[in-house]
């Protein structure tokens, strides 16, 4: 900026209603409001120079105000007052040229603050960001506090009496509320009961929270024991007001799954389970219950998009009839997760009693885990979900799951991301055939995630599927039989699109052999290998060199999608938030 205009002279008769400072501020604002934007942008050097000048004027103002306040009263020392005015005036002109963000309309600034607060990787960072924007200046603080939507995600992870969380709660006003409760970190680290979220503490929190029960949109509870859960269930059931906005309920009881809650709890009622929200939560579509159960028959379980059940004793599971009713009543279900939980299986159930499957055309994510082989077939046979893109099988161990592989053939033909954690299939020629047939029925797989698999589990990925196209092909082929099949059928590659492998708890040499086999035998080399961050600690420098000979190697964190996975999510639009 070449010149900075000098301030106008002090008017002989300032408005009687104004002090000098008010007149001065109004005059400066009036002047600045009619100044046009610059016609060419300032150069970076010019901007830096203007900033420096503005800082210098600020320092001059502070010096005068801090040291000569008495002389400034009623403009006692005119020369000093004029010097101050000039510094102030020139500084404002410079700041206008620099365009401080606070000149933006409040509406825009609020918009910016929302993006700062919302675009965070986790709730913990979100809390910090919200606090930070209130620490910048008075204007930001006032604006942020007035914006209800900045405060409506409340994570009760501060200490009792939860001053911060309740402040957020009150600031959220009438906005929809996303509430999360957690055990205190110190309890998780030390097990010290004084930090535990007890039923009594939960009751105190609920005394406040339930005053806005009809505004709650999301409720997530991650705790160790039953009492806080029962306190919450009880309040929701007896609330006179309907939680009409409640869309998502997630309860994770991280303590031992099958433990009896204690002699104080009424056992028949406990086993029957509580009716969630007394059966009345019209917007509920996301239900995740981990280590806790509800009264399945009276809880609101229609139009679900996510049903995620984990770690429940069979005795408190829903009946098969109810399970099927829930699926039928949720035709838009996108994610189904049954991990150590699912419908009750009568003792006399056998494979001849399989019922017709229920169509779930929108189901894109499925996880099945911690099941016996028979139970896995029992549970999965109830669904027909050909559009599953992300399939996970976890903790299928303790017996031979070869027949399960046979059962899975053709069930999920559109899988793109396949996870196999601890799948036990005995090493027999028949099982190899089942495995090959199953893998061959998922030709779109591009991303494979494995853990704790035996070496023989990797062989089917390298095989030529045509020798297993039919069950009547001999398991051990003679050269003549082989030639006959070669002449009749084209080569069938297993997972021809597979590009990315993520692994943990697997011997590096197995992965290296897998990589070499995919490149040389199948002709479909891996493009990238991810190692779980925790497992990386077990990888030696030699292992790393071996892996690098296969493909580029990267480290990933448990529970976080890798870029390749995210890209696939984007392409196929699958996966449900959370």
């Amino acid at each position: 900026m070449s010149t900075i205009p000098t301030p106008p002279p002090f008017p002989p008769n300032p408005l009687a209603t104004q002090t000098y400072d008010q007149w001065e501020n109004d005059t400066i604002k009036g002047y600045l409001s009619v100044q046009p934007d610059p016609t060419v942008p300032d150069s970076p050097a010019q901007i830096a120079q203007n900033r420096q000048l503005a800082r210098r004027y600020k320092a001059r103002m502070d010096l005068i105000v801090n040291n000569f306040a008495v002389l400034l009263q009623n403009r006692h020392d005119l020369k000093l007052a004029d010097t101050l005015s000039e510094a102030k005036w020139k500084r404002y002109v410079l700041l206008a040229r620099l365009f401080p963000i606070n000149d933006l309309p409040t509406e825009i600034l609020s918009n910016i603050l929302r993006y700062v607060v919302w675009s965070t990787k986790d709730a913990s960072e979100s809390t910090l960001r919200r606090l930070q924007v209130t620490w910048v200046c008075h204007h930001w603080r006032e604006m942020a506090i007035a914006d209800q939507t900045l405060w409506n995600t409340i994570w009760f992870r501060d200490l009792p009496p939860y001053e911060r969380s309740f402040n957020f709660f009150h600031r959220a006003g009438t906005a929809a509320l996303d509430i999360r409760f957690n055990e205190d970190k110190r309890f998780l680290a030390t097990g010290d009961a004084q930090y535990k979220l007890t039923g009594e503490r939960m009751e105190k929190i609920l005394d406040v929270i339930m005053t806005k029960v009809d505004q709650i949109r999301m409720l997530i509870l991650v705790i160790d024991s039953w009492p806080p859960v029962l306190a919450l269930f009880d309040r929701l059931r007896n609330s006179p007001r309907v939680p009409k906005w409640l869309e998502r309920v997630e309860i994770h009881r991280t303590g031992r799954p099958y433990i009896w809650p204690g002699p104080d709890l009424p056992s028949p009622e406990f086993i029957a389970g509580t009716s969630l929200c007394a059966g009345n939560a019209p917007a509920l579509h996301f239900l995740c219950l981990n280590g806790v159960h509800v009264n399945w028959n009276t809880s609101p379980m229609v139009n679900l998009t996510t049903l995620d059940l984990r770690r429940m004793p069979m005795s408190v599971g829903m009946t098969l009839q109810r399970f099927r009713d829930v699926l039928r009543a949720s035709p838009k279900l996108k994610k189904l997760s049954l991990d150590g939980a699912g419908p009750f299986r009568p003792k006399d159930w056998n494979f001849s009693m399989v019922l017709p499957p229920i169509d779930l055309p929108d189901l894109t994510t499925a996880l099945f885990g911690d099941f016996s082989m028979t139970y896995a077939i029992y549970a999965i046979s109830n669904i027909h979900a050909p559009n599953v893109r992300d399939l996970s099988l976890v903790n299928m161990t303790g017996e031979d799951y070869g027949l399960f592989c046979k059962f899975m053939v053709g069930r999920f033909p559109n899988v793109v991301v396949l996870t196999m954690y601890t799948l036990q299939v005995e090493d027999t020629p028949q099982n190899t055939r089942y495995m090959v047939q199953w893998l061959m029925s998922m030709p779109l797989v591009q991303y494979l995630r494995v853990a704790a698999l035996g070496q023989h589990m990797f062989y089917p990925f390298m095989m030529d599927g045509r020798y297993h196209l039919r069950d009547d092909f001999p398991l051990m082929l003679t050269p003549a039989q082989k030639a006959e099949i070669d002449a009749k059928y084209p080569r069938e590659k297993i997972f021809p699109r597979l590009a990315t492998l993520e692994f943990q708890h697997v011997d590096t040499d197995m992965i290296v052999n897998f990589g070499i086999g995919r490149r040389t035998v199948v002709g479909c080399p891996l493009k990238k290998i991810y190692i779980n961050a925790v497992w990386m600690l077990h990888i030696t420098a030699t292992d790393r060199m071996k892996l690098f000979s296969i493909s580029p190697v990267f480290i990933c964190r448990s529970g976080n999608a890798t870029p390749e996975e995210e890209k696939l999510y984007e392409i196929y639009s699958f996966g449900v938030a959370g």
Partner: protein
Amino acid sequence: MPTIVSVDDSTVPGEGSSRLLLLVSSDNKHIVVEEDIMSRSRFISKQVEGFEATSQRHAILLPFSSFVLNKVIEYCSHYRGYYLLEDDPDAAPPGRSPVREWDQEFLDVDRNMLLRIIKAAHYLEIKSLVGSCARAIADMIRGKTTEEMREILGVENDFTPEEEHSPSSKCTG
């Protein structure tokens, strides 16, 4: 790019060229632009509706300079004919999606320019551009300390030392 003609006088396009608009910037530059390019602007659309009601056409005076206006026109030209969710008054808010790739490049300007563009977009009621600018500014300060935020955005710390260090302010905002 559309045909943007700078003219030296304030001649309003005649009846034959009714699809052209004359925009006048604060530095008195006259810019002729096709009407449908600027249809993304609710402000301009309302002005045009006003013209139609009175059967008269006028220049539209805008309180920002030609270099800011040209930047806005460039944005509108790029998305000419495109449906952008943010500009749909009937659509739900777009949520927390990232800045579009083209917008990222388009908004790779100095901070002052970015602030002027967002102010102009707000005036012209172009929600998608306001949103992209807001995200770009948020990106500049995301992950920064409070002091860094002040420095980057030219905000003065006007808290008294007592206010700044009060425990309640630190804990609850």
